[in-house]
Each structure stands twice: as structure tokens, then as C-alpha cells.
């Protein structure tokens, strides 16, 4: 099987200085394989230290991989150079978590959105204004001509994130990598931003890879969800199936931790897993989740790091309890 985007055994290691000469390897992403179809939205869900952001950066080729490869539309992206790399950068847009930090306070919205056009020089300068206004219209910032004259500080978090999306869309990318696109946006504006991403996905056939800690938002915005823990994808499948029928104990723990507005919550304690995610510099042996796992099998889970196996309902799951015959 070969998707539009294909991740094959992708690992990313960092080397952290310890003392004068020693370095400690940090295994941020460990052997991730994932196929993403054209026009699909896949959400990578995990907590801090899970490797989700590093994986997103690897896909943007902002981070070199240590092992494995990432293939986009037939091209291994590690091999791209020169004009091919520039073409790749036009094809893959990015939006980041913090719309307060990602937009220059000294530039007007017009200049922010036009920057990619200026850098790449593939669109005649005479057409820049029209392209900028069209991008602003596409993210529902109107009247576009008036918004284009504004500075980011005069806008709300939701409006700024729209500007960031317009900036990414102005080069008409085929792929959008979105790192926590709504986590710093007010709750009331999140739905709109996610609906906007869905609209761009459907109307332009855009492929979206989003990175988030918010399983509930992923459930309603993505087609598929991949849950990461300690650098691995522990479970991946169609969004509704993964949430309604979680197979991995970590996915279940994440689901139990989601605060839903339900009067009954107050009367009971939340079912939570103990402890905290491990440091990628000191991973437990075997399955990295076993020290926190409520259903770990003594003698097995601390030695076996389970491989991904096909999951009923679609996708894959990496848990010994899901292995055939287990």
C-alpha cells in the first residue's frame, strides 16, 4: 500500500549534551509508519513528549530523520534539493500553535500573507494583491481589503490564526501541516477554525496532518486519528471507530481524561492512569506504557515492545493484548 504521504519506519533521535564529552540519545520518534491518502485529514494526538510535534516537523522537512523515510507523492523528501526542495516547500504549508508568536508584529496582514509569494517568486508581483485578498476571503476574513491593512495586534486570537492559515494557503499548497492549530484560540472560536480547515480540505482536496493533544477536537475534525505515546503510534484508525472502540489502553486512558460537560462528573473521580509519560531520554524497557498500564501483563509487557498489528475497525494497534492469539 502506498499513500500520498507515506511514513515508513520513521525515527528521530536527538543527542543531548551531558557533561563535557558525553551525550545522551533522546528517542523522540521511534519507528513510525503511517499512510496518508490525498485529501485526507489525519490528526496525530499525544501528550507532551510523545513525539507528535517532532513528527510534524519531520514531515515539513524542518527536522532530519535518523532512520526510515518519508515519501510525498513518490518523492523521498530527504533527497530533495534545490528547485525540487523549493517546489516541496510550496506544496506543503504549515501553521503553528501560537498565533501571537507566529505573526510578525511589525508587518501588516498584507505583507504577512504575501511573504511566501515574495520568497518563491512564482507568481508575478502584479498578481500578489489579488492572491492575498483571495486568501483572506478564503479564510473568511472580510472585508479582505480592510483586514489587509491591519497589524496583528489589533486582532483576536481566532482572527490571527486565520491570517496564519491564509499565509499558508496563499501558495495553494496540497498539504497543510497544522501544529496545535486551535489550542491557543478561545474555546468559542475553535469550532470555526476547525470548520474552516474542513472546508479547505473538501473544497480544494487539501491533505491535512494536524498535531494536537485534544482528542475531542480531533474526533470532530479529522478523518483518522493516530495516537502517539513515547515516540510510537500506539493506535491509529478512523476517528469515530478509534473513539467509540479504543483498543489500546493508552487511548482508553486519554478518552477517560477528557472533561465533558456532564453533571455526573462532579460526583465521581475521573478514571486516570497513574504517573506521567516517560522522558524520551529514559524510556522504560518493553512497552513504554507498561509502568502506567492498568492491564499490563507481568512478565510480558516489560520485555515485549509490541509491533503494530491490524486493528478491527481499521488502522493499527500496538498492544500485546491485541496480538493474534493473545
Amino acid at each position, binding site marked *: 500500500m502506498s499513500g500520498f504521504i507515506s511514513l515508513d519506519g520513521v525515527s528521530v533521535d536527538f543527542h543531548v549534551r551531558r557533561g563535557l564529552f558525553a551525550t545522551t540519545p533522546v528517542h523522540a520518534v521511534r519507528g513510525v509508519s503511517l499512510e496518508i491518502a490525498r485529501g485526507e485529514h489525519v490528526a496525530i494526538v499525544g501528550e507532551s513528549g510523545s513525539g507528535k510535534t517532532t513528527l510534524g516537523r519531520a514531515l515539513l522537512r524542518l527536522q532530519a530523520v535518523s532512520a526510515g523515510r518519508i515519501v510525498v507523492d513518490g518523492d523521498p523528501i530527504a533527497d530533495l534539493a534545490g528547485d525540487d526542495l523549493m517546489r516541496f516547500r510550496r506544496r506543503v504549508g504549515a501553521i503553528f500553535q501560537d498565533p501571537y508568536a507566529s505573526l510578525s508584529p511589525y508587518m501588516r496582514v498584507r505583507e504577512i500573507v504575501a511573504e511566501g509569494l515574495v520568497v518563491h517568486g512564482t507568481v508575478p508581483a502584479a498578481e500578489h494583491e489579488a492572491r492575498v485578498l483571495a486568501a483572506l476571503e478564503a479564510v473568511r476574513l472580510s472585508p479582505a481589503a480592510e483586514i489587509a491593512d491591519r497589524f496583528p495586534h489589533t486582532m483576536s486570537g481566532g482572527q490571527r490564526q486565520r491570517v496564519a492559515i491564509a499565509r499558508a494557503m496563499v501558495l495553494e499548497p496540497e498539504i497543510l501541516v497544522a501544529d496545535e492549530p486551535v489550542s491557543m484560540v478561545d*474555546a*468559542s472560536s475553535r*469550532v470555526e477554525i476547525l470548520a474552516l480547515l474542513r472546508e479547505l480540505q473538501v473544497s480544494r482536496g487539501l491533505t491535512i496532518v494536524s498535531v494536537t493533544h485534544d482528542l*475531542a477536537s480531533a474526533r470532530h475534525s479529522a478523518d483518522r486519528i493516530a495516537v502517539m505515546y513515547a515516540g510510537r503510534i500506539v493506535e491509529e484508525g478512523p476517528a*469515530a471507530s478509534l473513539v467509540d472502540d479504543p483498543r489500546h489502553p493508552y487511548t482508553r486512558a486519554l478518552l477517560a481524561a477528557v*472533561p465533558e*460537560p*456532564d453533571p455526573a462528573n462532579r460526583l465521581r*473521580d475521573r478514571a486516570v492512569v497513574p504517573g506521567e509519560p516517560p522522558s524520551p531520554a529514559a524510556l522504560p524497557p518493553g512497552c513504554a506504557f507498561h509502568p502506567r498500564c492498568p492491564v499490563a501483563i507481568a512478565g510480558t509487557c516489560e520485555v515485549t515492545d509490541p509491533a503494530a498489528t491490524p486493528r478491527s475497525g481499521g488502522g493499527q494497534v500496538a498492544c500485546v493484548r491485541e496480538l493474534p492469539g493473545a
Partner: protein
Amino acid sequence: MSPLTPAGETPVTDPAAPLLSVEGLAVEYTTARGVVRSVDGVSFTLKTGGEALGLIGESGSGKTSITSAVTRLLPRNGRVAEGRIVLAGEEVSRLSDEEFRKRIRWSRIAVVVQGAMASLNPVLRVGDQGTERLRADGVARRDAEARFAALLDRVGLPRGTEKRYPHELSGGMKQRAVIAMALTHDPQLLVLDEPTSALDVSIQAQIMNLLKELKRERGIGMLFITHDLGLASDLCDRVAVVYGGQIREIGGTDALLAGPRDPYTERLLASIPRIRSAEAPGFLPGAPPDLRVAIPGCRFAARCPLVFDRCRTEAPDLVTVGEGHDARCFLSADGPLPAVRG
């Protein structure tokens, strides 16, 4: 653990009075563009015996200004322009800053702010920070250390945490340490400003469980500030929805979740993505009002799906719609709100 009375003071406590009563509070900020009234006519009470009230709002709604007025932690350009704040029968808003700091803050009202990482001193061991105020109040070192060690244990931190520096702790552990510090003087009221927003979801759930336990076993009153109505419903007996510096709706959590009577509450609830539902969340378009500009009518009118002419010219008052349940909409008194699409 016996309650500790700091510096030999006897708390002025009226057993019949509510733990906290905020009456007609207005907070104003002086800015380069003039005076902004960011809290306007806010009143609520908190019962004794461990009631938790959630203050829910978007950024800029005024929720943090309300609690900063209660804790006297308003920034320099902010001031309480109107209203009274009464703690267990004593009008604490009349105290001097000096007296408030000595007698009220930390000993009777403790604060846990957003981002525990930032509120710890990086060059002091956890134990030294935790016992600092006790020592300043004249508690012997050994007693202060024993007391704080017991609290660290209570919030679920391992033995020896007091000897560690903040950078040696994870985010969740730091937040637990900050909660332990807030408890050193057995406060009657705990003000929690987004105490879990910087934490991962699984750690957030652990901290929420801890807060629930503390509420049950110690009967501490809690003011819980959050933008997340789901999170508030996990802890709070009552919630107040704040918008444009005013309370839009206040009531028991159950009643408010089951039948919101203000359109803003209704939209806020509809916009929460439900993990176990296939139904897409609803929209709440637009942005909160700019309070530098006078709004003649209802402050939510510009975003309200149920708006009609009267809303644009006349400001609605809070009306009682049920027992302990008030809402601020011309339609609130008529029963359940008409359905909104989307």
C-alpha cells in the same frame, strides 16, 4: 492536622454568613486610551462548607479581574471602583493592603495561578519555598517542615520532594507542589486560576481528582476560573458564566448544563466538541465586545443568534429563572430558550 492561626490573630468569622460574598463589584483599568470598566456589577456568594463556584469566560471576559479583586492582586493600573467583598462576615474590601496581606491572603484566601512553573522560585528548594511563609509567621522550623512534608504527601508527591529544586520536577509535580504551598495555612478559600491549563490531559485529570478530594475532606471553598465549561462541571457545584464584564448566567451546575437560559451559555455549551457524540459542535461566531466602546444594549447582541430589536437599545438585567439560578436575557424569564440551528 490542626488548623493554624497565623501570627496570633483570631479570624473574624460569622458562622451564619456565607464564606464569600461579592456585591456589585466593578473593576476599572486606566489605560492609554482612557478608563475601561472590565467588571461591571458582579455579585455572587459562596456558601461555607466546601462549595466550589466556577467562573467561566473567554479571554477578556473579566473572570480573572473578578478574582484578582477578591485576592487584591489587580495590576497597578486596575482598581475596585465599586462594590464590597465580604469574607465570612468581614468586609475585607475595606482593609488596607498591608492588613489584607498580613491577615487574609495566604492565611485565609490562597491562590493557585496558571502555569505553576512560573510561580516557583527556581533557585530555592521546594521545601524552603513551602515553609517560607510559615517561618515568617513565627512557626518553628521543625514544625513548619513537618507540616509541609505532610502536605506534599497529601497532594501525592513522593518523599524527599522538599529537598528538590523546581527544575527537577515535571509540570504535574510542580502544580501539586504549588497546591501544597497554598494549603500551608489551612485557607478557607482557594482561588484557582486555570490551574490545569498548562498540563497534559492525563495529568490534568489527576489534578482535578486531587482538587475534588481536597474539597470533600477539608471543606475548602473554591473559586475556579476556566474557559472550559467541561472542566468546571467536573469540580464546581455552581457556575457563573461571565461575558463582557458581567455575569450572563449563574446557577447550579446541573441546572445550567441541562437547561441554559442565556443564549451565550447555550452557544458556549453547543460549541464544545463532545467526544462521545457524532454531532458536530455548534458555532459561536464573532469576538467578545470591546469594552472601551459604550454598548447601548445587550453586550452579547452582536453575536447572539436570537437577537431582536430591543436587544440593541436596552440592556437586560439578571432575572431569577429558578432556585439560585439567574440569567441575563430578555427571553430568560419565558422558559427554555428557543432552539438554535448550527
